[in-house]
C-alpha cells in the first residue's frame, strides 16, 4: 500500500470527531500501554530518501590493517592503535528548515559527501515525500567530516540555524536566511579547533535571550588508545557564549564546566570522553543546566583495580552561566558508559527525569572487561524534586546503545523511550541492538519490546537518532543514521552473555579478524569489510487510536517588553495535564541537542490515551510560567512566550496589565491573531486566579 495514503488515512482517522467521542465514551481510566510498530520507508525510492555515509579518511588505515594482516598477522596490541570509528559518526536533526510547517531531516555525512537535508514535501504538495536539498542548501559542509549536528535560532530572526561538528577539524555554523538557504559563517568563534567534536546542544545559559552552545568532545580518533589506555587524556567540553553579533566567545575555562567531580585519582586538568551532551533545565529553576555523558570504555572501575572516569555529569547553573558539577551530590554517581540522553517526567511526579543510553549488558564478555550487571545498563534516572535523582533496580538487560529518544510512542499518556546502537571495534563489530522500544507502564517502569521496528538493525550500526512527527499523523516517528552496514554474508554470533531475556536472541557480534591459521598467534582479517552506513525512517504505524497534543514554543525576546526566551523556544519546559480523573501530568523539555550526535524535533508531544483535552503549561528561561487551558485532542499549539508569570506576587491588576501588554505586542508583531489573543488572555487570567 502506498505509504502516503496509509499515513493520510491514519492521520485523518485520529482527528475525527467520532474518534474523540469514542475516547470520551471509553471513560476516565488511564490508557493501557500498547505495542509499538513502525514501517521503514527510506528504502522506497519514491520517498526521495537516499543516504550513504562516506567514511572518514582514516578508513584507509583500517583497510591497511585488514590487508596487511593477510601478509603479516597482527599482534593483538595493534588493535589498540587502530583508527577509531573510521566509518564516521552520522548525526540526525529534525527541523523545519524552510519554515513551511512540516518537519525536515538533516543527516551529516563524511568528507566529500554533502550532508543531506531532506525537505519534507507534505505541506507543499500534500504528499509525504522528500527532496534532498542538502547539496544546494548552503549547509552541505561537503568538505567536512561531519559528526554531530544541532540547530537553533542563534540570531533570533525566526528561523533555524545549523551547527555541524567536525571530526578532528573545525565546526561550522550555517546561518539561515529565512528561506531555508544557509550561509557558512567561517569565523563565528564556534570552530573549536581540531578536536573530535561529537555532540552539541544550544540553550541560553546566561539569561540574555541568546542561544549559547555547548560542544562535547571525545579524543583523537586516529587511534583507539585514549579509549583503552589513557584514562584522562582526552578532549575537553567547550562552552560558547553568544555575543549577540553573530560571534561566540569560548567561556569553557571560566564557566566551571571543566571542573568535574567524582573522578578517581584524576589530575586537576582531567578530561574525559564525552559522547552525549545536552542543555536542559534539569532542576526546573528557570536556567539551563548541562548534562554530560562520559565513557568508561574498557577501563576497569575502581572496584576492579582501575579508575572511575565516566559519569553522567550534572552541571548546575547558578543562573549567570557559571556551573558546578553536582554529579555526586545529585545522587548520580555510578560509573557507566553513557552514550545518549533524553528527558521527560516518566513517573508524572512533576520532576524532570532523564533516560541514558549506555554500553549495555551483552558485550563485556566478548571484550573481556570486568562487569557487574546494571552498571552499564541503559536506564532512567528519576528526579526527586529536591535536585537529586534516584535509580530504580535494573530488572532487564539492555543492548548497546547510542542514539535515544524519549517520546510517548503509543500516545497512551506517558513517555516511553527507544534506543539503537552498534559499534565497529575494528577487530569485531558489536551488533547486539535490534532496535529497542521501552514501554512505560505509566509509573516509570519500563518493559522492553523488540521486533516493532521494520528495518533489520542487527546489520546496521546506528549512531544518530532523532524523533519527530514527520507525516503529521499525531504519532512520533524515528529517523536513524548508521556509520556502517554489515555485508549480507557476515555471520552473526551469539553473545556468551545470556540472561533468559528476549534480547538474548539478538545479542550478536561479528568477528572481523580471526586467529592466524598459520599459528603465529597473530590475527588475520576474515574478509568482512563494513559497507557504508545508511539511514532509516521508521514511520509509527499509529494503530492505538490515541490522540495527541503537540506544543512548540516561541520565545519573545526582542518582540515584547518582558520576553526573555530565545525565539526558537529551546530550553522551554512544557507540561500537559489531561482533564479527568487520574489524569497524570506529562512533562517534556524542548532541547537544543541531546540523544547522540542528534537533535529531535523542537516539539513537545503528549499522548492523551483516553483523554480528550487538558492544560498546557510552559516554564520559560527566567522562570516565568504561562498556561493555556482547554487544549483539545489533536491540537498543535505554537505557544508564544508571554513575559508574565501566573505565579507572580503582583496584584491581579498589575499582572493582567502585563499580560495584555505582552499579548498586544505579540499581536502587533503578527505572532498571534485576535482569537489567540483572547484565548491566551483568558487562560492567563484563570491561571492567576486558580493557581
Amino acid at each position, binding site marked *: 500500500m502506498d505509504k502516503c495514503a496509509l499515513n493520510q488515512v491514519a492521520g485523518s482517522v485520529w482527528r475525527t470527531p467520532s474518534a474523540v467521542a469514542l475516547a470520551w465514551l471509553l471513560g476516565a481510566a488511564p490508557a493501557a500501554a500498547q505495542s509499538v510498530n513502525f514501517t521503514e520507508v527510506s528504502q522506497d525510492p519514491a520517498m526521495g530518501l537516499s543516504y550513504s555515509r562516506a567514511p572518514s579518511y582514516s578508513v584507509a588505515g583500517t583497510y591497511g590493517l585488514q590487508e596487511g594482516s593477510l601478509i603479516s598477522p597482527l599482534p593483538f596490541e595493534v588493535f589498540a592503535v587502530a583508527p577509531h570509528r573510521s566509518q564516521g559518526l552520522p548525526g540526525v536533526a529534525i527541523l523545519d528548515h524552510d519554515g513551511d510547517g512540516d518537519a525536515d531531516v538533516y543527516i551529516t555525512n563524511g568528507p566529500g559527501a554533502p550532508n543531506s537535508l531532506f525537505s519534507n514535501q507534505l505541506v507543499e504538495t500534500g504528499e509525504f515525500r522528500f527532496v534532498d536539498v542538502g547539496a544546494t542548501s548552503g549547509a552541505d559542509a561537503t568538505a567536512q567530516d561531519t559528526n554531530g549536528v544541532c540547530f537553533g535560532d542563534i540570531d533570533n530572526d525566526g528561523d533555524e540555524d545549523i551547527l555541524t561538528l567536525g571530526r578532528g577539524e573545525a565546526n561550522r555554523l550555517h546561518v539561515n536566511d529565512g528561506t531555508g538557504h544557509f550561509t557558512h559563517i567561517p569565523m563565528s568563534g564556534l570552530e573549536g579547533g581540531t578536536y573530535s567534536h561529537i555532540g552539541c546542544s544550544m540553550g541560553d545559559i546566561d539569561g540574555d535571550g541568546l542561544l549559547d552552545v555547548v560542544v562535547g568532545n571525545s579524543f583523537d580518533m586516529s587511534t583507539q588508545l585514549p579509549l583503552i589506555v589513557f584514562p584522562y587524556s582526552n578532549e575537553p567540553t567547550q562552552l560558547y557564549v553568544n555575543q549577540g553579533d553573530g560571534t561566540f566567545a569560548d567561556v569553557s575555562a571560566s564557566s566551571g564546566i571543566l571542573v568535574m567531580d567524582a573522578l578517581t585519582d584524576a589530575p586537576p586538568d582531567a578530561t574525559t570522553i564525552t559522547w552525549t551532551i545536552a542543555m536542559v533545565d534539569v532542576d526546573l529553576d528557570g536556567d539551563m543546566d548541562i548534562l554530560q555523558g562520559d565513557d568508561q570504555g574498557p577501563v576497569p572501575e575502581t572496584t576492579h583495580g582501575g579508575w572511575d572516569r565516566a559519569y553522567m555529569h550534572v552541571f548546575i547553573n547558578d543562573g549567570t552561566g557559571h556551573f558546578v558539577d553536582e554529579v555526586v551530590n545529585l545522587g548520580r554517581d555510578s560509573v557507566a558508559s553513557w552514550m545518549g540522553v533524553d528527558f521527560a517526567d516518566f513517573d508524572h511526579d512533576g520532576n524532570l527525569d532523564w533516560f541514558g543510553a549506555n554500553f549495555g549488558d551483552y558485550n563485556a564478555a566478548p571484550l573481556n572487561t570486568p562487569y557487574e550487571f546494571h552498571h552499564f545498563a541503559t536506564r532512567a534516572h528519576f528526579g526527586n524534586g529536591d535536585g537529586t535523582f534516584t535509580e530504580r533496580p535494573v530488572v532487564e538487560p539492555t543492548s548497546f546503545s547510542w542514539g535515544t529518544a524519549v517520546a510517548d510512542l503509543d500516545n497512551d499518556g506517558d513517555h516511553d523511550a527507544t534506543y539503537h546502537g552498534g559499534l565497529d571495534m575494528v577487530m569485531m563489530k558489536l551488533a547486539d541492538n535490534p532496535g529497542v522500544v521501552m514501554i512505560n507502564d505509566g509509573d516509570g517502569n519500563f518493559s522492553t519490546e523488540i521486533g516493532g521496528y521494520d528495518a533489520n538493525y542487527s546489520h546496521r550500526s546506528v549512531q544518530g537518532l532523532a524523533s519527530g512527527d514527520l507525516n503529521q499523523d499525531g504519532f512520533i516517528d524515528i529517523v536513524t543514521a548508521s556509520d556502517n552496514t554489515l555485508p549480507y554474508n557476515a555471520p552473526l554470533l*551469539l553473545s556468551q552473555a*545470556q540472561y533468559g531475556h528476549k534480547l538474548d536472541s539478538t545479542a550478536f557480534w561479528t568477528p572481523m579478524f580471526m586467529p592466524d*591459521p598459520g599459528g603465529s598467534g597473530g590475527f588475520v582479517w576474515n574478509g568482512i569489510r563494513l559497507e557504508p552506513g545508511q539511514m532509516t525512517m521508521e514511520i509509527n504505524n499509529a494503530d492505538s487510536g490515541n490522540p495527541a497534543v503537540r506544543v512548540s514554543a516561541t520565545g519573545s525576546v526582542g518582540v515584547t517588553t518582558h520576553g526573555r526566551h530565545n525565539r526558537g523556544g529551546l530550553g522551554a519546559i512544557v507540561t500537559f495535564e489531561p482533564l479527568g480523573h487520574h489524569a497524570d501530568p506529562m512533562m517534556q523539555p524542548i532541547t537544543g541537542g541531546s540523544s547522540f550526535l542528534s537533535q529531535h524535533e523542537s516539539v513537545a508531544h503528549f499522548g492523551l490515551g483516553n483523554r480528550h483535552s487538558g492544560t498546557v503549561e510552559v516554564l520559560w528561561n527566567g522562570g516565568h510560567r504561562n498556561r493555556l487551558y482547554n487544549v483539545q485532542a489533536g491540537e498543535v499549539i505554537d505557544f508564544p512566550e508571554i513575559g508574565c508569570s501566573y505565579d507572580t506576587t503582583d496584584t491581579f491588576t498589575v499582572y493582567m496589565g502585563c499580560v495584555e501588554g505582552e499579548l498586544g505586542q505579540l499581536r502587533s508583531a503578527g505572532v498571534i491573531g485576535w482569537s489567540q489573543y483572547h484565548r491566551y488572555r483568558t487562560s492567563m487570567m484563570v491561571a492567576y486566579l486558580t493557581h
Partner: protein
Amino acid sequence: MMQRRNFWSMSVVFALVTAGCTVPLEPDSAELSVQARRGGGHHGGGHGNHGRIARLRDQIDQFGVEVLPPPPTPSPELYALGQALAFDPILSGNRDIACLTCHHPTLGSDDNRPLPLGTGASGLGMDRSGPGLIVPRNAPELFNRHGFDNMFWDSRVRIDEQGRFVTPAASQLTPEMEQVLYDGYGALGAQAMFPVTSRTEMRGQLGQSELGDIPDMQFTLIWNALMARLGDIPEYVTMFEAAYPGTDFEDMNFAHAGNAIGAFEAQSFYFMGSPFMQFVAGDDSAMTAEQIEGAIDYFDAGCGNCHGGPMLSDARHHNTGVPQIGTGTRGGPTNNDDFGFVLTSGSPRDRYAFRSPSLHNVELTGPWGHAGQFGDLRTYAEHYIDIEDALRTWDPYDQVIDPALRNTQYDNIDEVLSTLSPGVAGGVPAHLISDEMMVFFGALTDPAAEDLSAFVPATVPSGLPPGGI
C-alpha cells in the same frame, strides 16, 4: 493472556493472509458430515466425485502446488563421487560418521531420531548409541532437496534474492567455490560443505584429529584438511578428476566435494510419484475419495499457506509455537534455547521461526519438528488447532521417542507464544484436522521412496564402513 484487541488484529491479519492466498473457508464445509463426504477407499475419479475433485483442483491451483521438475542429471562419474563421499566417514574428524549416517536411505533419508547423535556414537537410527554429542536440530530428510534455495532449519546456507551465496563461512566461501556451486547444484552443494565443519556432527573435538584441532570458524583450514585427506586416497583423486574433467585434483576445492554430494542427493532422492502428485499431474483417479477429502481439509485448514507450492513448503520461516527440547543452539542462560531463523537473519521478528519443512513423503520422515518434538503426526497437526493450549499441555512422554530427551524441555513457552507467526496464531478449526487429513498424509508418500537401500554402496574408497556403520 492475549489482549482482545490483539486477538482481533491478529485474526484480521490471518484473514487477510488467507484471503490473499487461499479459498475462504466455506461455511458449509464445517456442516458437512464427514461420513457424507467420505468416499471410503474408492478412487476418486470413478465414483461421482467430480465436484470434490474440481474443488481440490481449484485449491491446488490456489496454493501453487505443481510437480517439481527433476534436477539436472549428473554425469555418472559425478554421481559416483557424490555417493562415495556421502557415505564415506573419511569426511569426519574421527572417521566414524558420514553425511548419510543421519540421512540414511533405509530410514526415509533421515535417522528416525528426534535429534541425531553425532561423531563418537555408533550404529544407525534409534539403535545409534555411544558417547556422541546430541546435535541440536532434527536431521532433515533429503527428498527433492534441489527444490530449495535455502538449507537447514534456519536457512543459514542459502542463495539470496540477489543470487548470492549466504553461508556461515562468509568470504571463506571463495568466488572459485561459488562458481563450482553455481555451475552445479547450488545451495544443495553448498549445504554439504558445512556438517563437516560442525564439531558435534562430524568434525570432533580438540585433540581427536587434525580436523578437530582446527579452531572454530576456520572453514578454509577445515576444507583444505579434508581435501588433503581425500588427496591421500588415489581412488578419490581419480574419481574427482573423472567427475570434473579437465580439472586437476590439485586445483579443486571442497566445493567440488560438496557439489558432488549435492548431485548424488538431488538425483537419488527425487520422488514425485506420490498419489497426490500424480493427482496434481492430472490423474483424477490417483487418490481415493477419502484422500481427496483429506486434501480438501488440508487446504481448508490453511496448511497450504506454509506447505504449498511444488515443495509443499513455502521455504519461509514461521514460529509455530512448538516446544524446545535437546541441547539447543547456545541460546539462553543454560544455552539450551534455540532462537531459530533470527540467528541467521538478525531480525527479532524471526525469533523461534524455522523453515517450513517439505511434506513430500512426510509419513516416512518422523519424528517431526525442528527438534523432533512430535512422534505422532496427528498430534503435530492437531497442535495447530489451539497452539497455546497445545504447547502448554505438550507431553514429552507421549511425543518424544528418545527417552533420553524427555526431560530436556526448555522453558521458553511464554516467549515463543509472544512471537507466534500471525498466520497460525488464530488456530485452525478442529474438525479440519480430520481422519481424512491423516489418510491424505499417506497419499504424499511415493511408494518408490519406501525402500532406498539400493543407494547404500557396498564400499567406499577409504575402506571405512559406508555410513560409518
